[in-house]
C-alpha cells in the first residue's frame, strides 16, 4: 500500500469529530508548532519539504509564504482556497467533508507560521453542506481551546471563519477570490501588487489550496526532510488525485508522486481500468485546463519512457507531447467518447465562467463555443479548425488572469492530437450530427 498522509484515517468511524480525530493523533502539529517552534521555523520546514501548491499551479508553498510582507501594525491573513471548481477535480470536497479537522489543524499551524490572527476558508457556494460540516468542526475546535484567544496557553490568538461563494469558477483565481471575499464580483486583480503585499482588505495575504494546507500538519510533525523523501525529484510528497470519466472505479486516491500512470489507471487499487471493457482513447490528467493527451502519449513520453504521475513527467515534452499534473483532476476517455463534443463541452464551460473583464477571453471563449457547436452539429466549415487555433492563440497570454490560457490550451491540444476527428465532423456533417456519433479511426487505440 502506498504512503497515506492526508487520508490515512479517512475510514475511521467518527473521524469528522474532534475527539476521534485527536485520538488518531490529530492536533499534535498544533501543540508542537505553538509550543516548541517559532513561526519562521515552521516556514523553514515547509520550504524543506518541497511541498508545491496543490490547487494546480504547483508553486512551492514555502516560497510563497516567505514573500508575505510584514509591515508594522498591519494584520496579515491566511485564506484557504476551497473554491474547488476545475472540471474533473473533487478532492478538496472529499477531504473537507470526510475529515474537516485535517484542514482546520493545517489552518492553525499555517496561520501561526504566517503570523495571521484571523483566517478564512472560502468554500464554493454549492458545497453548503460542507460549509456546515466545517462550521461544526470549527465550533468544536473553539470549545477545546484550539482556536480563539491564547491557544493552548501559547499566547497565540486565531479566529477561523468559513466564508462561502455563490457559483463562479473564476473565484478559484486567488485575486478574484479575494475580491469575492470583500463582497464584490469575482473580477481578478492586476498584479503587482501581489496578495502577499496587498491582498484581502489591502493587507498582506497568502491564499493556499485546501490540500496544501492539510499537508502542513504532517510536515510539522515529521519534518520537511521526511516529507521530501516521499515522491520523486522535485515532486515531493503525496497528491490527491480525483479520478473520473470512463473508468471502473471513479474516486479520490492519495498517491505517492511518481506512481506510473499505467499502474494508476489499470490497477485495482486505483482506477481499475477502463469501463465497459473498452479501450482508453485519451486523458486529461490535471483538470480541464491542462492539455489532453492521446492514450499512447499518456502512458509513455515521446521518448518512450514510462509516464509518471509527477509534475515533471506529466509535462515532459512540453505542450507538443506532454500535459500537466495541474489540480490532479484525472479524466479518462474511452473509445466511444467524441473529442469534438468534449471540446465543445469544455469551451462552453469557459465561456460561461469568463468574468468578462478582458475582451480576448470574454469574446474569444464565446466564439470558440459557437464554432465548436456548429462543427459538432454538422454545420462546420473547412476553415473552422484553423479559425479555432487562431482564436485560441489570440486569447493565450493576453488576459489579466490565467482563465484565458485555461480556455485556450484545451482547444490547441484537442486539435493537435485529434485533428482527424474535427475533419471527419466537417466532411461528414450528416453522420456527425447524429446523437452519439463518434469518429473511430482505423488504427486501434493503445
Amino acid at each position, binding site marked *: 500500500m502506498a504512503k497515506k498522509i492526508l487520508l490515512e484515517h479517512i475510514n475511521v468511524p467518527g473521524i469528522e469529530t474532534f475527539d476521534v480525530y485527536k485520538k488518531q493523533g490529530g492536533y499534535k502539529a498544533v501543540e508542537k508548532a505553538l509550543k516548541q517552534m517559532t513561526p519562521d521555523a515552521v516556514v523553514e520546514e515547509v520550504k524543506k519539504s518541497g511541498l508545491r501548491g496543490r490547487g494546480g499551479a504547483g508553486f512551492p508553498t514555502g516560497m510563497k509564504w516567505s514573500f508575505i510582507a510584514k509591515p508594522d501594525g498591519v*494584520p496579515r491573513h491566511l485564506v484557504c482556497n476551497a473554491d*474547488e*471548481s*476545475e*472540471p*474533473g*477535480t*473533487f478532492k*478538496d*470536497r*472529499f477531504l473537507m467533508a470526510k475529515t474537516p479537522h485535517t484542514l482546520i489543524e493545517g489552518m492553525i499551524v499555517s496561520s501561526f507560521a504566517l503570523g495571521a490572527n*484571523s483566517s478564512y476558508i472560502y468554500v*464554493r*457556494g*454549492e*458545497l*453548503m*453542506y460542507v*460549509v*456546515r460540516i466545517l*462550521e461544526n468542526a470549527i465550533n468544536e475546535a473553539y470549545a477545546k481551546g484550539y482556536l480563539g484567544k491564547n491557544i493552548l496557553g501559547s499566547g497565540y490568538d486565531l479566529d477561523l*471563519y*468559513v*466564508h*462561502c*461563494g*455563490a*457559483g*463562479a*469558477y473564476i473565484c478559484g483565481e486567488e485575486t478574484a477570490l479575494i475580491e*469575492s*471575499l*470583500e*463582497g*464584490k*464580483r*469575482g473580477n481578478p486583480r492586476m498584479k503587482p501588487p501581489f496578495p502577499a503585499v496587498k491582498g484581502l*482588505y489591502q493587507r498582506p495575504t497568502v491564499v493556499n489550496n485546501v490540500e496544501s494546507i492539510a499537508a502542513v500538519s504532517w510536515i510539522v510533525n515529521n519534518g520537511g526532510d521526511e516529507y521530501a523523501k516521499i515522491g520523486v525529484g522535485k515532486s515531493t510528497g503525496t497528491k490527491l488525485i*480525483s*479520478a*473520473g*470519466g*470512463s473508468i471502473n472505479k*471513479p*474516486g*479520490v486516491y492519495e498517491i505517492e508522486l511518481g506512481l506510473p500512470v499505467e499502474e494508476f489507471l489499470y490497477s485495482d487499487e486505483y482506477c481499475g481500468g477502463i469501463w465497459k471493457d473498452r479501450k482508453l482513447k485519451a486523458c*486529461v490528467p490535471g483538470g*480541464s485546463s491542462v492539455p489532453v493527451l492521446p492514450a499512447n502519449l499518456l502512458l509513455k513520453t515521446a521518448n518512450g519512457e514510462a509516464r509518471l504521475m509527477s509534475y515533471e513527467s506529466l509535462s515532459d515534452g512540453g505542450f507538443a507531447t506532454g500535459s500537466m499534473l495541474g489540480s490532479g*483532476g484525472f*479524466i479518462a*476517455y474511452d473509445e466511444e*467518447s467524441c473529442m469534438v*463534443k*468534449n471540446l465543445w*463541452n*469544455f469551451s462552453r*464551460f469557459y465561456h*460561461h*465562467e469568463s*468574468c468578462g473583464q478582458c475582451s480576448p477571453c470574454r469574446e474569444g471563449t464565446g466564439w470558440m463555443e459557437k464554432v465548436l457547436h456548429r462543427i459538432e452539429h454538422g454545420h462546420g466549415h473547412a476553415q473552422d479548425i484553423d479559425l479555432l487555433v487562431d482564436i485560441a492563440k489570440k486569447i493565450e497570454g493576453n488576459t489579466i488572469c490565467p482563465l484565458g490560457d485555461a480556455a485556450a490550451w484545451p482547444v490547441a491540444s484537442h486539435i493537435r492530437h485529434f485533428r482527424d476527428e474535427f475533419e471527419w465532423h466537417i466532411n461528414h456533417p450528416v453522420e456527425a450530427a447524429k446523437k452519439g456519433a463518434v469518429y473511430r479511426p482505423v488504427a486501434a487505440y493503445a
Partner: protein
Amino acid sequence: MSGYHHDTHTHSNVEVKFSPEAMKVVEKHLSKYPEGRQKSAILPLLHLAQAELGGWLSVEVQDYIASILKIEPIEVYEVATFYSQYYTSPVGKYVFEVCRTSPCWLRGSEEIVEYLENKLGIKDGQTTPDGMFTIKTVECLAACGSAPVMQCGLKYHENLTPEKIDQIVDESIKENKISRAWF
C-alpha cells in the same frame, strides 16, 4: 442578465424582513469581518435571503440587504447578477441544478436531463406551472467521482439514475417547501 432593470419580476409576495432567528444568522456573518468591512458578508446574506424571503432575489430583497450592510443598492445588484447561484427572477421551490460538464456528460448527464425534462414536462431553464420545480443545467459541481450529479438546496444527489430521480421528485412533493442552501 442584461435588461435586468426592465425585468417585470421586481416584487416578491412575502414581507421583506428577516425573522428574529434569521437576524441571529445575519449577526453571526457580520461578526466575521473587520470593522468597516461588513460588505464582505454580502454573499452569505444573499444566500440567506434567498432561503428566507421567497426563494429568489427580487429588487426589494436586494435593497433590503443593501440597507443591512449600509451600502448602495447597486453594490448588491452587481453581485447578485454575477454569481450563478442567485436567482433574480422567480424559480421553483426545488431547483434541480444538474451538472452538464464533461466528466458528468461521460457518465450520462444528458440522459438524466432528458429524463427530468420528460418527467416534469419542462425544458432546461423552465419552471413547472405549479411553481414546484425548475431544471437548470450547471457547470462542474466538484463531484465527478459520483457522476452524474445534481445539487438541490443543501443536498448533493449523486450517481443519479431514473429511479433516483423518481424518488427525489416524490420526496420533494411530499416535503413541499422552498429548498435553498444557506449557513
